[in-house]
């Protein structure tokens, strides 16, 4: 009885759409034509994708994005957490400052960073020029630098969140382990690699999975800052799927892409889950 509202709502709002989406992905459907425009075309959406430049670029960008931002985020947040945990003054304010980007509205943040990245006049390039860099990157206007620009902003926004998770993980490591290590004569580096890292492996696993999943869900930054450009250098699966469905009204194709996205996320998560037996200690 209690769970009825939740299940009903959830059923209509989530389960049904999921099933529908799967069905639609096998169709060619221009929404504006109404229901009569729905034509089943089997797997054609899925096969066509691979010759679609925007799709392939989206996929490539997503993979690049994950490959760069996830390790960067993990390393930075781990280091920050360790530092904070070791003992610093002003622990609370520092923690606050690092976490603040995470709670802020990504739209507003994208706008601010978009301005910071202004190639000719923005503060970032002005700073670089003053440091002697003769030809600073074109950032959002350059097809080579646009994706890295978004990556930087994304890492900035997420370090705080992951740092908090690591902090919690660190605090769960029993002190006695370190005491014992000290007695055995282990230095700080050794105890880090032999105790801290292994004990943190469940946390690292969690951080890694959530970071990867989130990295595949990048959307707002691309939508607000670059709309996939210049060219198709910053398009990602979420963005292209949206564009196909709501700018071009090709519902079938859009749904097909969304499902590919899901499959990728699922696959990566599954592989990680299997892999954890090898390196995660509980």
């Amino acid at each position, binding site marked *: 009885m209690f769970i009825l509202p939740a299940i009903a709502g959830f059923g209509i709002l989530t389960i049904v759409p999921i099933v529908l989406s799967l069905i639609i992905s096998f169709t060619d459907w221009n929404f504006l034509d109404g229901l009569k425009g729905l034509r089943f075309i089997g797997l054609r959406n899925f096969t066509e994708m691979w010759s679609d430049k925007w799709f392939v670029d989206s996929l490539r960008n997503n993979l690049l994005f994950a490959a760069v931002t996830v390790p960067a985020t993990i390393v930075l947040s781990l280091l920050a957490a360790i530092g904070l945990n070791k003992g610093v003054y002003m622990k609370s304010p520092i923690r606050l*400052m690092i976490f603040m*980007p995470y709670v802020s509205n990504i739209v507003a943040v994208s706008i601010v960073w978009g301005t910071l990245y*202004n190639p000719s006049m923005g503060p970032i390039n002005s700073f670089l020029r003053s440091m002697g860099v003769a030809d600073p990157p074109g950032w959002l206007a350059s097809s080579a630098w646009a994706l890295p620009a978004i990556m930087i902003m994304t890492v900035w926004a997420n370090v705080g969140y992951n740092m908090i998770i690591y902090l919690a993980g660190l605090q769960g490591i029993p002190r006695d382990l370190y005491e014992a290590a000290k007695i055995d004569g282990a230095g700080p580096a050794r105890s880090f690699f032999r105790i801290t890292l292994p004990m943190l492996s469940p946390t690292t696993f969690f951080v890694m999975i959530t970071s990867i999943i989130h990295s595949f869900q990048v959307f707002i930054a691309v939508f607000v800052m670059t709309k996939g450009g210049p060219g198709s250098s910053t398009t990602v699966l979420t963005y292209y799927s949206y564009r196909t469905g709501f700018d071009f009204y090709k519902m079938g194709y859009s749904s097909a892409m969304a499902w590919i996205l899901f499959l990728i996320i699922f696959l990566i998560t599954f592989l990680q889950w299997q892999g954890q037996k090898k390196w995660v200690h509980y």
Partner: protein
Amino acid sequence: MEQKLAGKRLSLPKLGLTVVLAAFGALMVLPFVWMLSTSFKLPIDVFNYPIEWIPKRFNWNNYQRVWNGSQPFDLFYYNSVKVTAITVVGTVLVCSAAAYGFSRIRFKGRDAVFFVFLATLMIPDQVTLVPRFIIFNYLGIYDTHFALILPGMFTAFGVFLLRQFYVGIPEDFSEAAKIEGAGHLQTWLRIILPLSKPALVSLVILSFTWNWNEFVNPLVFLASKELYTIPLGLTNFIDESGTDYTLMMAAAVSSILPVIVLFLACQKWFIEGVVSSGVKG
């Protein structure tokens, strides 16, 4: 007494680490500071270099232009508040009821259903956008605030968070209530709910933040400008202001402020919410 004296000495390595981390923290906050300071500048001063952290010429006008300007920013604010508030209340009610069901009431297949709930967390929003668009159209709630409130209320995450917490509440409490003759409804209202205050607060705060910052749902499901929430209104604003950066920054500040204030006031809950959603899972 000796310990007190020892504690007063500044430890050098600790100081060093503090400086490093404080610098890192400052770096993180820098964009915000720039945003704030630019919102008070005159347009031509925006890109002055070396950066004028405190504007030499203050321009209070920008905020006025944001709020009284061509876009109904105050309407956006009202919409955001309204949608977020209703969604948060709805979320708490629905999710806590569901969590109670999943943790305290035994029925066949309970854990299997819960698992399905959880599995959907992995499904990206993109998958459900198109079908929801169609369903909402069909139900007639497209381009209404309902289209935002309903998906926000029925979140698997909320159920998960609360259920984990409920499972941690010892059975004795509900047992005692049962002995007193209380039914499930009473037990839930009188005992479990009050006990789960910490988790509820975390849920409220997290839920508020997400819903306030929600962009994709309004983008897809709203068409009339009068219904726009802040994130969406902000993008419109940008398109219109073009290169008037001071105006854009003022608008950005106005959008971010409520959540930052909430965050500063309730940091502990925020952080606890983040941790309990992650580590205990």
